[in-house]
């Protein structure tokens, strides 16, 4: 088993390196010139060449690549043309917000997903089950921006209870630690809800069908025939089996949340990886694009890795396969 995880661990840097190398070349082969950002009719034509020199864009592509490799090994990912700062520092500013948003969303969507799935199973084949199923399907298919719009109109415009943007109030730095934490939580409610609502609906539907499948297994029939309490059957026998598949779903959800929730970040003005990646691509900010890809790959692959470990720990069948 240790060998399996060691192999996966060793493959990670290679995978990240391969992905970022691919992106390094692809983004440079796209049409568009990053220097255009800085030009205007009042600037001398020579400025474009000076900027290309300053950004290292006047060198052959392979030289740029080798220089970039050298930078990576010194802990730098280059210099962002758009933000005029180190790529590491730019990503460092966006990452905490993305991680916080993703983790909070995952917690909410898993909790709500489990609760809804259990409620649906409890009232299986009843009107409540059908209502929950239809409502879940509708919510799951709703575009994120539309949910955000409804929440903002309802909670920020109509009732003005939650703020419509940012991670904290103006002058939040002057608050006490507890006040700051509450202020932060108050600001995160709408963006987290926006992302968690469709996620929870999806998870509920998935978990509901997993629970129903698991409840048709022979061990459940045996337990029932032995007169085991229904609650115990559900929570001790069916749910642990059904939840195993939720780990995969949660891992995928967290992976995509960590690589950026562009629309939510834009609407709620949150600094995050989604906004950063889009800005970098549109402005042909090559070092930042590659830096974002590295960060996103690291996060995505790490989440997958953790998912595998959790699977191994909670599912004895996987443990037995590897042993």
């Amino acid at each position, binding site marked *: 088993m240790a060998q399996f995880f060691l192999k996966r661990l060793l493959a990670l840097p290679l995978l990240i390196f391969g992905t970022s190398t691919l992106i390094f070349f692809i983004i440079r082969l796209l049409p568009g010139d990053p220097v*255009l950002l800085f030009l*205007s009719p009042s*600037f*001398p034509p020579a400025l474009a060449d000076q900027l290309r020199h*300053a950004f290292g864009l006047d060198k052959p592509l392979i030289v740029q690549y080798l220089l970039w490799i050298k930078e990576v090994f010194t802990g730098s990912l280059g210099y962002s043309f758009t933000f005029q700062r180190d790529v590491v520092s730019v990503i460092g500013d966006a990452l905490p917000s993305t991680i916080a948003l993703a983790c909070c969303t995952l917690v909410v969507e898993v909790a709500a997903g489990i609760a809804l799935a259990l409620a649906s199973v409890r009232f299986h084949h009843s009107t409540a089950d059908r209502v929950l199923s239809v409502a879940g399907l509708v919510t799951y298919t709703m575009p994120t921006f539309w949910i955000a719009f409804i929440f903002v109109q309802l909670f920020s*415009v109509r009732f003005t209870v939650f703020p419509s943007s940012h991670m904290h109030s103006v002058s939040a730095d002057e608050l006490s630690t507890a006040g700051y934490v*509450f202020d932060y939580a*108050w600001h995160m409610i709408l963006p987290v809800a926006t992302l968690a609502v469709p996620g929870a609906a999806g998870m509920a539907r998935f978990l509901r069908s997993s629970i129903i499948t698991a409840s048709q297994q022979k061990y459940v029939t045996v337990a029932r025939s032995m007169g085991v309490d229904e609650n115990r059957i559900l929570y001790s026998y069916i749910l642990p089996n059904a939840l195993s598949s939720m780990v995969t779903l949660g891992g995928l959800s967290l992976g995509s949340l960590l690589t950026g929730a562009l629309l939510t970040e834009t609407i*709620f003005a949150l600094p995050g990886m989604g906004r950063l990646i889009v800005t970098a691509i549109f402005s042909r900010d090559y070092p930042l694009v590659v830096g974002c890809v590295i960060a996103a790959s690291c996060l995505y692959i790490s989440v997958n890795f953790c998912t595998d470990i959790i699977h191994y720990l909670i599912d004895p069948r996987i443990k037995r396969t590897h042993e």
Partner: protein
Amino acid sequence: MSRNILFISTLVLLILCGCSQKKNSSQQTIIVALSGDIDTFNPLYTTDATTQEIVELLYPSLVRPSIDTASGALVFTPSLARSFVYQNGEKDVLFHLRSDARWSDSAAVTARDVKFSFLRYGDPAVGSIHQEQTAGMLVAANGAPDIDRSIVVINDSTVLFKFREASPSRMFDIALPIMPAHIYEQIPASELRTHPANKTPIGAGPFILASWKPMQEIVLHPNPLCVLPAPAKIGSLVFRIIPDLQTQLIQLRNKEVDMVMDLEASDAAALQNESSVRILSIEGRRYHFIGWNNIDQQAYARSKGKVIAPHPLFGSARTRQALTLAVNRPALLSALLSNHGTIANGPIAPFFKNAFDRSIAPYPFDPKKATELLAQDGWKDTDGDGILDKDGKKFSFELYTPTGSKFWAELATIVQKQLRDVKIEMKLAKAERSVYWQSLLEKKFDAWIAGFEVPMELRMEGFWGSDLKKSPFNIFSYRNARVDSIVNTAYLMTNQSDATRSWKEFQQILHAEQPCTFLFWEDRLIAVNQRIRNTDINRLHTLYSASQWTVSEN
């Protein structure tokens, strides 16, 4: 039950926390919504207009520009300079600096800082976008500006600027922000762009940087040491980065922000009934146009810029006039901008009162006349397919807009219909924004819709010079020797009536030759909360008077 109580109490706490915070922040704080973050706090590298305005609130400058409302001309008043006098036939300017000006770290602002700043602006190794503003200084043997010789520090409070020739727009070059030499002189030119000092600016303006949370907010506080002219009057000025305009408007209505810049006309109309908001409409510096490629871009590209032949569709001035006559510009202005703008006749804005030619009547919307002019150029529908043709070639082309520009896309759709009425087939095409601008600079498109924001200094050679390599922003590839002569000399003319005559002739030539279809000048619409007072917002600056802004108690 206890869980429910816990949940409800947490929710109530969160809401209370939020409400109390909102009250605290609303008192002596003014919050301005920005759609994008600042590039840098180093004035050497500021690129966009808002960044420059924020940087100007932090750093001193020798003189500050303002607008003389009577003449529309820019006037420069001393700021860090106590006074200035022209010498040597107005080629040189002698500045006497204020002796009481201090950087925010208490060091004195001296003439040495002034010279140091301009040495950095002009150094090609620094790569400042403002280096062209040192181009008028004395030159060295190799032809490069010799800033060391051009700026003479006479003593701590006296500095002399020497230029090669007199120019009425000289003060534009001198009004750059001054940087603290004691902070930046130890930093090598190659490291200036990324140096950590750029995040903690030391200035001498009315504000100091209190905090900057990238992609979130910039907080400025009054600079207690400022004497240029005084510390800001409000408690703090906060710029919140809100990329989505609709979110900005919601926050304006909720009084979470006090100012939203660059509204769309439809948003301004929707805000008219908001009692807490007033809408400022400012004569714009931005004009929109339909660009026609005046030259055969394929021949130009094949020959690597050596062959310059007229464009097969748009090479004739008469055809271009016809195209302008076929476009209903008043209807476009009304439909798209709710008349927040004026029809454009050329690239000189009406507010340049000394240069704008009021005698030029705009081309009317006249499809019949357009058809006649096209026929005179040989464009007729000979095969009856509803599209004009000449020598077997149809009058059919693609018009490009950048992706993401809803305004230009809507404009293009209306123009397509109007041109169809004179039997011209215009297909709509889109290009990703970066590709779009690169293609324009490489003259790859036949036709496109774009807009230019004109500088306050009347300099047109970058847009209209015939040397397409030296004037890359002449994206129309328009070439006219007389226009060359005017754009290269008029801005240097010290005699105002000579300059006026030249600029009027320039506009008459462009009006006759229609290198593009000038559409309209777009007014800037800014929404401000009524509680903000003394907002002297003009076409030059939005934040110009921010240090004078106050908050009404009511």
